[in-house]
Every structure is written in C-alpha cells, then in structure tokens.
C-alpha cells in the first residue's frame, strides 16, 4: 500500500511540470508562523483576494490566451534560514514564474540573494532595507527604502515634538530594525548636532523584558524614543516604558503598522505616531475600494502589508502580461518577466504612485499616521521624495 502511495505521489510530482504551461504559478515566501504571523496572514489574504478576482474573469490574459492563476504559499517562519529554503523550494520544486515576498527585511535580504542567483524575479512587498535589492537585478520591491523613511521620521519628530534629543531602541538581530536605527541616528545627529542621540540601545528578537534598556534610556532624558521594531515588540516596549514612568512621546516606523498592533498594545499605544506606507482611515479611490472589499471578506481593516502585497502582485502580473506570451520554458519565461519588469517605469498602486529606479526600488511617498483614540491609523502627514 505504501509503495503504491509513493508511486502515486511520484507520478503526481512528475506530472506537475506538465501543467506548468497551463497555469501561471506564482510563489509566496511569507511569514505565516513565527514572530510576525499577522504579516504573513495579511499577505496571503490580499493575494487570495486578487487571485479570486482574476480567476473569476477566466484568468490572466497573456498574449491571446487566458491563464488561471495558481499561488503557492510557503511559510518562512519569519526566519532568515527558512526564507532561503522556502525560496529554493518555490524556485526548484514548485517551478514558479516569480516570487512575492519575503516581507520583512530580515528574511528578504538573504532570500533575495537566492532569487537573484537562480534568476527568478522576486518582489518584496514590505522590505525597506536597501540591501534587499542592491546589485540584484532580479529583485524588486513595492515599499520605499529606509534611507528615505529615516529622514521622514526625523523631520516629523523634530517638528511635531519640538524635539532636540532622541533615544533609539532597536532589535539587533533584525536587519530592518538595525538598518533603520542607524540611518535615524545619523540623520538626527546631522540635523540636531552631535550628542543629540542620548541613548542607542539594542535587544534580541526573543526578548520580553526591556526594563534595563528603558531605565538607561529614561535616565538619559531624551525628548522622545524612536522604536523601529516589529509590532509585537512595540507592544511590550511601550507598556514597559510607561511602567517605568515614561510620559514623553514615541516615534515608530512602518513595522508598527500591523492590524494586530492594537489588540496587543491596547490603550498604551493610543496617541503615538509612526511613519508608514498608507493610511487606511480616510483613504480614497481604488485604495478605499480595496480596504472595503478586504474588510468585508476578512473582518478587519487591511494593514500596509496587505496593501503592498496587492501592489507587488499586480506589478508582477502586469509584467507577465507585458512579456508578450508564455513559452512554457521556465528559464525563458522568467527572463522575459524580468525584462518586462525593467520596462515598467511607473505604477499606480493602492499605496500610491511609484516610479522605479535602476535598482528596482520604487520612488514613492511615505505617510505619518497617528493612532487615534479608536485605535485607527489616522493620516497626519504625507512626505514625498
């Protein structure tokens, strides 16, 4: 019996590539479990919604033929090493045409190398660390970069809080957090003078107690604390700072913007600001339509990862359409998609208009949102490059 099953499985595996030409298979290398599962969930939900919409119309039209979409979701457990394995599996075993994700830079930086080495287009929806796409012709993204986000946060905080000094608490083992923290520090010191960063403290990804770092920060008396961390850590950091008597503001970054932030953080996070990709409260046009459909289907307001995944996937689909026709030969098709990606000069996404530069990075606006008393992310300011 087992031998029979094994045989059946083997036949199935052999049979899979034969279908490759009939459908368009896209891989998703996302964070379904691990530290930031809500990020993976949002990504998957947005992708499912897009797939359902296109498949309901009979599939994606490429050349003269319509192909149904097939999305393969691979969990990278929010770990760098798993993201690499997941990427290899998608490229080699699932034989996908292109890959969306990973979202977080911690996974996207190493996985981008694999995609580039194996000549498969990868688009990260959410990664903001420059290294993800740097010198990797096959890797793209839908989010702005930290060298842009850092100054946005600095300028906003200086203006809003009338701040003359700041402290930073970041996650040392997270490329995103560390990169952004360093950019913020350099930018702030350039603007406010040397020594204006009064404390620059780090912690580990699995840490739950931040009291020692926060005690040090509070003793240094900065005007605000910059916390470029994932939403799960933010909830703990903000709460513990309040317990230690901190009453001054926090400034956050786009990793705060998960739908789960407010369930974890509650009242402690109300009234805080962070820079991000889009503001759900008060959105208009196509963005609003997306938000309403998503909310109706899944019961919560889509966070920026959902919106960026939507954009990233649509960019790839547009590239596939513009590649002319699919030959069914994987290598040639992947190459055609990359060439088509390079031809896309600008894209009108639900997270705003973007233009792509030579590195495959979009040039787009950032927004600063305030967490209002209802726990919504309210538009405060838009900053364009």
């Amino acid at each position, binding site marked *: 019996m087992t031998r029979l099953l094994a045989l059946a499985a083997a036949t199935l595996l052999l049979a899979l590539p034969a279908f490759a030409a009939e459908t368009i298979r896209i891989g998703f290398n996302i964070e379904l*479990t691990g530290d930031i599962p809500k990020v993976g969930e949002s990504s998957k939900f947005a992708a499912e919604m897009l797939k359902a919409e296109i498949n309901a119309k009979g599939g994606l039209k490429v050349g003269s033929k319509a192909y149904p979409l097939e999305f393969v979701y691979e969990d990278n457990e929010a770990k760098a090493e798993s993201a690499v394995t997941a990427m290899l599996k998608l490229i080699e075993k699932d034989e996908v045409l292109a890959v969306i994700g990973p979202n977080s830079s911690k996974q996207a930086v190493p996985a981008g190398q694999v995609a580039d080495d194996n000549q498969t287009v990868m688009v990260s929806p959410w990664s903001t660390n420059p290294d993800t796409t740097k010198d990797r012709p096959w890797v793209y993204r839908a989010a702005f970069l930290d060298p842009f986000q850092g100054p946005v946060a600095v300028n906003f905080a200086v203006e809003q809080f009338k701040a003359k000094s700041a402290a930073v608490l970041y996650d*040392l083992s997270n490329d995103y957090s560390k990169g952004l923290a360093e950019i913020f520090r350099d930018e702030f010191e350039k603007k406010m003078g040397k020594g204006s960063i009064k404390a620059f403290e*780090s912690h580990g990804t*699995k840490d739950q*107690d931040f009291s*020692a*770092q926060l005690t040090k920060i509070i*003793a240094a008396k900065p005007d605000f604390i910059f916390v470029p961390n994932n939403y799960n850590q933010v909830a*703990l950091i903000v709460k513990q700072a309040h317990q230690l008597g901190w009453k001054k503001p926090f400034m956050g970054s786009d990793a705060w913007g998960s739908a789960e932030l407010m369930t*974890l953080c509650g009242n402690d996070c109300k009234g805080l600001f962070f820079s991000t990709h889009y503001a759900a409260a008060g959105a208009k046009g196509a963005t609003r339509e997306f938000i309403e459909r998503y909310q109706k289907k899944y019961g919560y307001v889509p966070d920026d990862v959902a919106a960026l995944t939507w954009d990233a996937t649509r960019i790839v689909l547009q590239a596939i359409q513009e590649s002319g026709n699919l030959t069914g030969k994987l290598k040639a098709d992947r190459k055609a998609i990359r060439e088509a990606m390079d031809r896309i000069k600008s894209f009108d996404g639900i997270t705003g208009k973007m233009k792509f530069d030579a590195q495959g990075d979009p040039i787009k606006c950032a927004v600063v949102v305030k967490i209002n008393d209802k726990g919504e992310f309210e538009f405060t300011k838009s900053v364009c490059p």
Partner: protein
Amino acid sequence: MLASLLQNLINALQWGSFYALIALGYTMVYGVLTLINFAHGDVFMVGAYIAFFVASFLLAAVGLPGWAALVLAIPLTMLLTSLVGVSLERIAYRPLRRKGVDRLYVVITALMCGLILEHANLATFGASRKAFPTLLDEQVYTVAGVSVTNLKLAVIATALLVFLVLQRIVTKTRIGMAMRAIACDRFAVPLMGISVDTVIVATFALGSGLAGLAGLLFAMSYPILEPYMGALIGWKAFIAAVVGGIGDIRGAFLGGFLLGAVEIMVVAFFPSTFRDLIAFSVLMLILVWKPTGLFGVARTTKI
C-alpha cells in the same frame, strides 16, 4: 545614578522572580528523579496559556471583576498546569522508568515532550499572538526617580512567598521528607513502605503548579503570549538552577535571582549587545569555580 541603580535592582528582582519560579520546578524534579525535565519551560508556556483562557473565561463569560478573576485564576491555573505536568509524567516518563531505560532516553523524551507541547499549541491556536487581558489596574508609583508598579511588587513578593512555603513543605511535611529521602537513596525508600510513584507525582504536581503560577504572573507582566515563549526562558532558568546547585531549592531560588540580576546589570552598564555574552560568561566562571553550583554537594553516582 543612584536612582538608576535602584531602578535596575527592582527590574532585576522582577525578572529574576520568573527565573526563580521556573528554576524551582527543574530543581525539584532533578532532586527526586535526577532527571532534567526539559519540557518544563514549555509547561510554563502552557501555564501562561491556561491562565489566558481561565482569565478570559472568568472575565467575559462569568463577568467577574478583574480582582475576583485574579483570585480565582491563581488556584485554577496552578491546578490545571500541575495536571499537565502530572500527565507528562504518566504518559511519557513513567513507562520509560518502568522499563528501566537509561536516563539519557528520558531526557531526550523530555525534550520531545517540550516540542510536542509547543507545536500542539501552534497547531491548535495558530501562530498569532494572544493579548492577555488586564486583571489588575496597574498603578505606577514614583519615589525619588524610581518607578515601581503594584504588579512588580506583587511578582517579587509572590516569588519570596513561594520560596518560604516550598522550603517549609520540603523540610517539615511528610511528603517533603519523602522527597528528600528519594533524593538521598532511591532504592531504600520503597523498602521503608513509601510509595515512590506518589512522591514523584507530588513533585511533578508541585513543580508544574509553580510553573503555572509563573506563567500567570509572566502573562500579566508581559501580556503577549506565543507558543515559543517558554523555550528560551526555560533554558535560562535551567542554567540558573544548575548555577545555584541543581537539586537544591535554595540554589534554584538564588540562581534565578542571580541570573536576573546579572542580565539586567550587564545591560545597565555595558552596551546591551553584550548581555548574554557577559551574563553567561559570569555563570560559566561560577561553574568552573564550583562545578556543583552554589549550594550543590558533590555526589557520587549511585546505580
């Protein structure tokens, strides 16, 4: 400077309380069975989840106010978590012991039990984190630049109280004497008409109950629960127990606070990047100087 130091002392006491409470469970099981129960960190995680469900149920379904829910949640969580610990012993460790296999296999089984608990949790409740409900309205008291909350004080007081009660149980009660007797000579105990299994079950119940209590307090202090929350803290608490002298309750208690203090103080005076590096170097030096731990007594292996 003095205010910071005092603040960090309080931080260290709170953080150390969790290590101490978890380390007590390791050390008791080791004392009785000479088994390193590596599933203990995950029993702590299960305790936090049980606390979450008990508290949510009492608050939402029964509609109790926060303080009443807390009063009921403490014994319920401890009881349910000790059932988990006892079940582990029944299902996994006892059959192996009956077969008289080498201790190594029991330790490996314990490791696997821990992973099973983690992944059973992941499979049942999903990867998304749980936010622990507020049971106690937190008040921040600031005296001369030092901030404490009522919760922090409660955590530290509970840890001290648990230690005193446990010390009393082990030294003054019959079951406590039986535990020490087994630790002393496992083969002579049945000859004296003491049921070894009863004592082992009691040990697991007590140790896991404390892990449940630690889970509840931890969930109240750091109100975000996830399936892997027990792994790292469990490992560290085990190290704390070893440094204190595994098998000795005073050792586990002191080791827990020592580890908490070293971790917090390293961050307070050095770049926080060096925390684990310096903390564990210090602990290693202690072990090099005294391999049996602070309170440990060198014993020759019997069998």
